[in-house]
């Protein structure tokens, strides 16, 4: 069960600011309300899960359980809410990766692919930092593509759900994904210095 929950109005205020474009609010919200979420993330990403993607670890579920309280309090629409959850998820993973690096911990020993369709990204390590940078760059070019990626691969929506939440067609989502994956993959190669793939 969620440990300490701050007053709903505090969360509400932060949610509103985030909605209005204040990205800092997201960070504040994560740190204020969900300190233990990071610990949980660490636990899940250490678990014996060879072959399991992030989705199967149930981390997303934990996130949701905590946010569920918030949603009931604040009349925020679905689209915004899930976009928020996805971004929060992304933050939690980035944070975990940063700490692991700072503490010079060895890699977990096994991979936790972010998602079947983004299997080249290991959610438990530095890959996440490279991905985050790449996503930030992509955001400058087209924010919607980043939202699609977050909803699909951080939160685990289906393509149709993502289309519904973002108010676009399914075909648009499919195209966004095809392009974004290639773009991110390309960017991440550059960032991580890995050898170029065979043509």
């Amino acid at each position, binding site marked *: *069960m969620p440990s300490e929950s701050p007053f709903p109005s505090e969360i509400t205020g932060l949610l509103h600011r985030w909605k209005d474009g204040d990205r800092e609010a997201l960070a504040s919200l994560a740190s204020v309300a969900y300190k233990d979420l990071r610990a949980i993330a660490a636990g*899940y990403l250490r*678990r*014996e*899960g*060879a*072959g*399991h*993607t992030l*989705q*199967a*670890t*149930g*981390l*997303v*579920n*934990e996130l*949701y*359980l905590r946010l*569920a309280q918030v*949603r*009931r309090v604040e*009349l*925020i*629409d679905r689209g915004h809410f*899930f976009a928020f959850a996805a971004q929060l998820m992304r933050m939690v993973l980035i944070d975990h990766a940063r700490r692991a690096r700072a503490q010079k911990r060895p890699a977990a020993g096994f*991979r936790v*692919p972010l998602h*079947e369709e983004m*299997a*080249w990204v290991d959610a438990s390590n530095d890959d996440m930092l490279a991905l985050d940078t790449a996503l930030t760059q992509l955001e400058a*070019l*087209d924010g919607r593509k980043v939202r699609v990626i977050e909803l699909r691969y951080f*939160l*685990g*929506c*289906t393509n*149709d*759900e993502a289309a519904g939440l973002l108010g676009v067609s399914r075909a648009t989502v499919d*195209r966004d994904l*095809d*392009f974004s*994956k*290639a*773009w991110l*993959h*390309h960017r991440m*190669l550059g960032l991580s210095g890995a050898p*170029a*793939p065979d*043509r």
Partner: protein
Amino acid sequence: MTPIERIESLFHQARALPAGVERRQWVDEQCGNDRETAAQLLALLDSDQAISHLPGPVAAAEPPVPTAQFGAYRAVELLGRGGMSAVYKARRSDGRFEQTVALKIMAGYLAGPEFLRRFELERQLLATLSHNHITRLLDGGVSSAGDPYLITEYVEGRTIDQYCDEEKLDVAARLRLFLQVCEAVDHAHRNRIVHLDLKPANILVDSEGSVKLLDFGTAALAAPGKSSLTAVGLLTPRYASPEQLRGQPVGAATDVFSLGVVLYEMVTGAWPFGDPASALSELCRAVGDAPVRPPTGVVTAEAARSRSTPVDRLRHMLRGDLSAILIKALEDDATRRYESVTRFAADVRHFLEHRPVSARRQTAWYRARKFHRRHRVAVTAAALLFLFVAASAAFLYQVRLRNEEQERHAAGLSKIVTQASLMITEHIQKSQLELAREEELSLRESLEQEQRDNPDNPLIWNLLGSAYMQLGQLEWFRYGPSFMDRDRALDSYGRARAFFEKMERRHAAGALDQSVAARMYESEMLIETGRGWEAFREVVQLLRDDEAALPSRDSRSFGSVGNLASYYDMLSDRLGGNMAWPEEDADAPGWRRALAALQPSRMTNSIAMTLYRAVLTPPAGAGPEAIPERGGAIVRLQLGRLQLQVGMREAGWQSLREALRAFSVAAATTHDSGYVLDHLAGAHIQLSRAAEAEGKFAEALREREQAMACLDKLAAPQPRSLYQKERVGGLRLASARLLNRLGRRAEALREGQAGLRDLRENAAQPRAAALTLDLAAQRLLTAEPLQLRDPAQAREYARRAVDQTAATMPPYLVTLAFAELAMGHQEAARQTARSAVEGYRKVGEILKPLFDSSRYPEAASLYREWRKQLEQLPDLH
């Protein structure tokens, strides 16, 4: 095209070409001298290739079959892997007997001393389970390697879903099979063992068609007290109950739920909560955000084939009883499901035997249970009427209570009525109309019974009166979910009135307020059922009765006068006072201009204003604190609107601003936000009108946008009610008009079209209110920009409104006349206009007693002016 859009476009096109030379050549052609773009494009295509050639997620290499000894058994062959365990076929290895068993080895890391202790206890318990349809536990322990294991009977068979589909069993056969499953689970429950992981994979069917359940109790074993079983990866969320997803206490009801999911799939071939592939559904379910999909809507032709039944017949079977059974088993709230598997099975059996099913007779009537306030009925503006009534009447009740027991009975009764109402509302919102009807009938029966039991108790009359008022609102209410059944509503309001009148005769304080309110609602129904003249007469009567009683009401005069003022306001509406017909071109017939300028509600507006002002004046000796905060704000809103209408600019603006301030404060501090948001929206709308009248279009548009924001917030947890859609539609059209004036034509068109869509959707409802139709017609005639107008459809709607009200509502006749004129049917329009004028004359006569010059001199003189104007309408004679 921006650079990225170009790259994107090229990317998708290039992808469609086969990789290799052809593609590279195409890229070269497209990019020409732009080497940078070409390089980028090729790099992206490379990545795309690389991604599609990546190996899939590394499948866990299958561990070799363990060689350790597990009791007297040795593993032979892997049968399957679960979240934290693996199951093997095993053989007895001590040479004594030949026996094949199933060996389940659980993940080593689970084995701590705590776990082993529980394991032992559970094993003892499980060993006592002995039933035909449950695989017996034979042995268990911890292997030499430290892995806990269980040995059970080995069963050759298919999982129940496989079996049913491969054998193409029909619904009845599937249900019978399901009953076997219930038998087994019920047996376990009686032995205090819950399964907690029921799913098709755990339900096998052997070659003789007999069911065998696997894996009892192991879910509980593995993770008691974990925050959420799915989080630990032990549970398949697909069949998990809401309490399991939330990490809340589990019990027999949990198994009922999982069985419900299994049955739903067996019968329909679909998952009750949408797309099983979606991770989001699990999350939504955890919050209670995922309603059960109606079974009739999810069957496909393929599913029907596996059930050896034609699609239509399958859908038909799923209606009614079977749906009700499934819904009851799948209730989000564990206390509302079947209490036990026995009852679940009983209902299924009854269904098979064509006997009545308890799930449908289920009512909240005799259940005194805590009712979760998750599904609050959205409070809307028309409940404003009741703001005053509720505040002033029910609690002023001065009947001496005979004893405490009576009071308790009454309290229980009123709680039950509320529960039933909320359930009916829920059913209506989920489009479960048959269930809603059942509840409604049941509630009616109970109310009638109560009346028979307690014929002479004013306390009960009060409750029954209020109950019928609530029922009436569920049966027909423009402002919220309802059955749209006018006749029933009329009946309910009539009964409510009868009770309140009985109370009046006993001189119960507050009874008058309630009976007047009931009569007001009744009169609305009279209009909608074509008895308009009667309605107007009724309104005159009730207004006079209400006013006559005014001096005798003392302490709650705020509420009483406020109510009276709002009734006059409602009367203004019915006279057609709220619509402003814009100026038309010079060659429109004279009568058109005259009718448009008629202002039929000027008299009633005058009285309403007088009363609203009186409301805002504190009684003698009291200060401004005597005016309730919120009620005062609402009154200021209405007063402001009226003041602006008659041109009192300063006063009007001030009233509106004060109202806005009060509402904004309330919005920030109150939890009853729905109610306040609604009024806040209203305040912004009035301010917008005021600004528009002064030509301040930009400001007017801003106010409209604010109003829209409030309405958006209001709609969020539930689908929009008809009334809210009407408001949103009106808002959009007003914004369209303003955008047009500001020269933003494209946006104006878009907004206008969206607004008209809202109104058309409302009007398209088969039992749309006449008022709704008339409003839609008016908007279709007066929309801006001009290309949004649709006189033909306006005429259709206006016609329907007139027909529904049997031509007794003059303002609807006016709308119809204008529509016919817009279509070019001059003569028909003139005829209709004549009828409208006739109607107004008749209504004018009926209303005359209200405009008594001794009490309301201004209104009286306005009335005389109005009658004169009516007589002098040009070209209609």
